[in-house]
């Protein structure tokens, strides 16, 4: 898997910081919050050691962190910030300022539960709540993927047809605080892949213009339509950037969505984030026992891989979606998206939603095996034609729930 550069034993946060260092942002503004803290600590160390020329701003809040990165982006700087949980929620107002103004800011979010109940551990309720902030959202599976995705994120965000900020989501603790062997690409290779930012969306004495201005009812629809178009353009750009990345660095993440052993799979589990790694092991084990199982790893929640799920069919009889979030009053957010994309007349794939891993709860290999078992159960119920949906399994399953 390793190409060039050097291999280090790093935490996910340190790996992400290495990715940022290689992209050489000119301004970083951040406020520490668990479990993101060691990421920005590492960056401040890099800047203090003059590893790359950068202005590191100590701000008094996450709201200011995003405002400051926006200010720097307005003069054409490549910028970075990172946060988590309540910090991301506190940034919420500024997220839409940045996305609406189309600045290619990259943000790393250490996924963590949101209060209350107060909890510093990992789940994806924070970033899922910011789904409609107008940011592209990636979710990573490992420290290596976090590093690589940050490099890809700048390339996607700065693409002239996209010009949209990108949030790279890294599972709190499970990735941010887990040490692993990580390949650090060379600076030369990264610079070849990602040249310095060139943009016209900035203040300039040569070409004066207004930025981040008011758009009333007369042109508002058009401005939003352009944002939507940018997300459509991003679908192709994300795929192309991943291909180009693979050509230089030898690692490929399959754009917005990856299929693992899905070719003839009848029971498929859809996951997002670090759980994908554990799921690979379970798929391999069940495959060895002759079970036709597979995994879909959703790497991008926005843009959503709609075409992929709309085209899902073939051998698949039962599809599970694991959500490390819950949208109260409905269901897991990823489940809703997947089901909506799959909607078509006569669709025959049965679906289950698994809510698991909230507030840092472990998602064990046994939990994942149980999910595949349930998928196998509803698929065979469907085959016999005797069981109606809901009779043998509840559509929404809360894994590990001790009482209801």
């Amino acid at each position, binding site marked *: 898997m390793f190409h060039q550069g050097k291999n280090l*034993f790093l935490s996910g946060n340190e790996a992400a910081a290495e990715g940022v260092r290689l992209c050489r942002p000119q301004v970083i503004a951040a406020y520490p919050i668990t479990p993101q803290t060691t990421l920005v600590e590492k960056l401040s160390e890099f800047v203090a050691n003059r590893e790359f020329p950068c202005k590191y701003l100590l701000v008094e809040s996450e709201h200011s962190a995003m405002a400051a990165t926006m200010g720097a982006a307005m003069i054409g700087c490549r910028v970075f910030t990172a946060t988590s949980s309540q910090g991301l929620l506190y940034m919420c107002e500024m997220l839409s300022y940045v996305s609406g103004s189309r600045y290619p800011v990259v943000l790393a979010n250490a996924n963590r539960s949101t209060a209350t109940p107060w909890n510093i551990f990992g789940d994806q309720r924070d970033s899922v709540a910011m789904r409609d902030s107008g940011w592209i959202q990636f979710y990573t599976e490992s420290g290596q993927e976090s590093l690589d995705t940050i490099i890809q994120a700048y390339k996607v965000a700065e693409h002239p047809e996209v010009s949209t900020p990108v949030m790279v989501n890294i599972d709190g603790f499970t990735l941010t605080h*887990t*040490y692993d062997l990580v390949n650090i690409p060379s600076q030369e290779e990264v610079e070849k892949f990602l040249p310095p930012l060139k943009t016209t969306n900035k203040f300039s004495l040569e070409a004066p213009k207004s930025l981040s201005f008011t758009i009333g009812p007369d042109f508002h629809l058009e401005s939003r339509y352009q944002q939507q178009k940018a997300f459509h353009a991003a679908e192709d750009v994300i795929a192309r950037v991943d291909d180009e990345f693979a050509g230089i660095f030898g690692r490929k993440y399959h754009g917005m969505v990856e299929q693992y052993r899905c070719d003839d799979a009848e029971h498929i589990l859809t996951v997002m984030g670090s759980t994908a790694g554990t799921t690979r092991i379970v798929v391999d084990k069940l495959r060895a026992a002759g079970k036709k199982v597979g995994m879909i790893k959703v790497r991008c929640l926005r843009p959503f891989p709609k075409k992929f799920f709309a085209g899902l069919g073939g051998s698949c009889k039962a599809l599970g979606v694991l959500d490390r979030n819950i949208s109260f009053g409905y269901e897991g957010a990823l489940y809703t998206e997947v089901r909506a994309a799959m909607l078509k007349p006569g669709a025959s794939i049965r679906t289950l939603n698994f809510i698991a891993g909230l507030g840092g709860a472990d998602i064990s*290999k046994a939990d994942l095996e149980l999910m595949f078992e349930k998928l196998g159960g509803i698929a065979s119920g469907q085959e016999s034609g005797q069981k109606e949906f809901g009779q043998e399994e509840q559509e929404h399953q809360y894994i590990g729930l001790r009482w209801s």
Partner: protein
Amino acid sequence: MKEIRWHGRGGNGAFMAARLLGLAASVYGGRYAQAFPSFGPERRGAPVLGFTRIDDSIIVDHSQVADCDCVIVLDETLIDVVDVLKGLKSDGVLLVNSGKGEGEFRKLPGFADIKKLIVFDGTALALDILQSPIVNTIMLGATIAATDIVGLSDAENAIEELMPKHLAEKNKQVARMAYERVKYGKEYEKVKYEKVKGEQR
């Protein structure tokens, strides 16, 4: 895959030991490794855990460690507080830092069945050489001797890389001493140590 759990109290350096072992196995040993602490807030003196996974192929497991091939207890008072035998495989190894004899521990519930139990007085060695009761690198050396999970020189390289210069030398020394005492017995190490000391003079 080998899975190792470290028991310590906040400040004992249990996670540092887990990290050193992972670094030794991966960057210096040419294999793959993962290391992580018990997630959450850290408090000095509170029971904490460290985990190391080592394998010949890339490690993609992001669930918690359930079954262990080896458990190391840096502070014996933890045995009263947490179940240090939890998940220890039937052929697993348990190392305890203590000045007591192995017989004392064998009397404890569940300890009679442990295939390989090593009781090593890491604290005495730490006080002697490091002038401080920090035993993480000592128990790392003892663990390597008991399991051969990584090469001792790989661990020495890891200590050199991770620890500040003024601590690295002495920690490498105590790791090697613990390794030799567990591997070959105290007498061998003593003879060798005095011989080296003699040569240095």
